[in-house]
């Protein structure tokens, strides 16, 4: 259940592009055509799904305070979390190269569609942001880290797909000259972000305590009004 919740939360509510503005650079640069946008989006999902769990392991067993205790008692006091930036980015850069080499060897057709985007991804803020948010939100297990990686990847994919589709259509509209290109893309993204904010209430519906309190209040109100009614009838009699 918490997997499903985290999955939808990372796609819609904490959408990488619309809620935290991660990966905006490639989002703006590569969204002129739907086909290329799909390629980059797929590569982002893939790399996030690999690097977030990997960095979770690094964080749990090397970087966190006391994480080194598996080496022996005397290491328990070490706190290497100041190294996390450099470790995360090194992991991401090497993983991206590794993935590129593997994909090139085993699936040339996939390489042809994804390959040119892979180097771009090493410096995509969405990838590092995924790992840093994973760390700061203290995601508890490896499975959840994987879910979070895939979910945020899909969220980013949806965002770039949507803006690419809009930009293909907007070519036929008459935009004020000074807004053409970059300006109108910013404003459209802003409007889309407002739209995505409405997903914010999606996961708050199941809060049982609140509803119980409300029903209790309604009951007391009913009783009071009944009493009043009774009093009134007595007065009338």
């Amino acid at each position, binding site marked *: 259940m918490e997997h499903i919740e985290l999955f939808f939360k990372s796609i819609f509510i904490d959408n990488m592009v619309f809620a935290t503005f991660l990966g905006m650079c490639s989002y703006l640069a590569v969204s002129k055509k739907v086909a290329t946008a799909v390629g980059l989006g797929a590569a982002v999902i893939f790399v996030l799904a690999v690097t977030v769990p990997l960095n979770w392991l690094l964080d749990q067993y090397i970087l966190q305070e006391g994480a080194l205790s598996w080496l022996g008692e005397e290491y328990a006091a070490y706190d290497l979390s100041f190294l996390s*930036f450099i470790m995360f*980015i*090194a992991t991401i850069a090497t993983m991206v190269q590794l993935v590129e080499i593997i994909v090139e060897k085993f699936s040339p057709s996939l390489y042809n569609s994804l390959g040119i985007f892979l180097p771009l991804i090493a410096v995509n803020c969405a990838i590092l942001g995924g790992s840093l948010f994973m760390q700061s939100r203290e995601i508890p297990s490896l499975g959840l880290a994987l879910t979070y990686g895939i979910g945020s990847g899909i969220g980013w994919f949806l965002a770039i797909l949507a803006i690419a589709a809009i930009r293909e259509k907007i070519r036929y509209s008459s935009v004020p000259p000074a807004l053409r*290109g970059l300006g109108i893309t910013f*404003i459209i993204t802003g409007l889309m972000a407002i739209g995505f904010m409405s997903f914010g209430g999606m996961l708050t519906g199941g809060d049982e305590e609140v509803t119980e309190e409300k029903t209790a209040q309604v009951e007391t109100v009913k009783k009071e009004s009944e009493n009043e009614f009774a009093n009134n009838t007595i007065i009338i009699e």
Partner: protein
Amino acid sequence: MGLLSKKDAALITDPLADNNPITIQVLGICSALAITAELKASIVMAVSVLFVLGLGNVVISLMRNIIPSKIRIIVQLIVVATLVIIVDLVLKAFAYELSKTLSVFVGLIITNCIIMGRFEAFALGNGPWKSFLDGVGNSLGYGVILIAVGFFRELLGSGTLLGYKVLGDPIEKTGLYAIGYENNGFMLLSPMALIVVGIIIWIQRSRNTALIEEN
């Protein structure tokens, strides 16, 4: 400008307007938008980027002849990451509250495209002094937009600037609030950052029509 030749001065002044990293080169937008809800955070972010980009450009430029081109991205990332760790530790030591507001976005300076972009486009092909000027110019251009966005969002969103109540007190109804003015809380939410940047781009391009794109 006795100290700088004309060409060197152009390295600093160009990115401020006609070759602005955010509005023209489309670099470094991620961090520009997320932290601009208050002016103070924007200023700190601008200064951090100034430090990282100015120094990083010099380091990369000094190493440009010994970096093998195949692994240059990893080398660049390590240089940036080291500088960013310094910034992060300094912020945590001297401005702890602020470093909590900026949260992961300090770390995200590493993947700020301005930095990688300037390393690739300038520092790898020019000497240290020019690279330093280019770094300073570009981070100033970035800072100008950041501070402009932060200014409008904080002023219109919470009626304050750097925490001072410049428009009067909303609870005691003084200043502008006495005549029925209300804060626009929407300015504090993330979508408005995009729209404010969009409007800045609009104004800049209507003033300088040479920058207009062809759709």
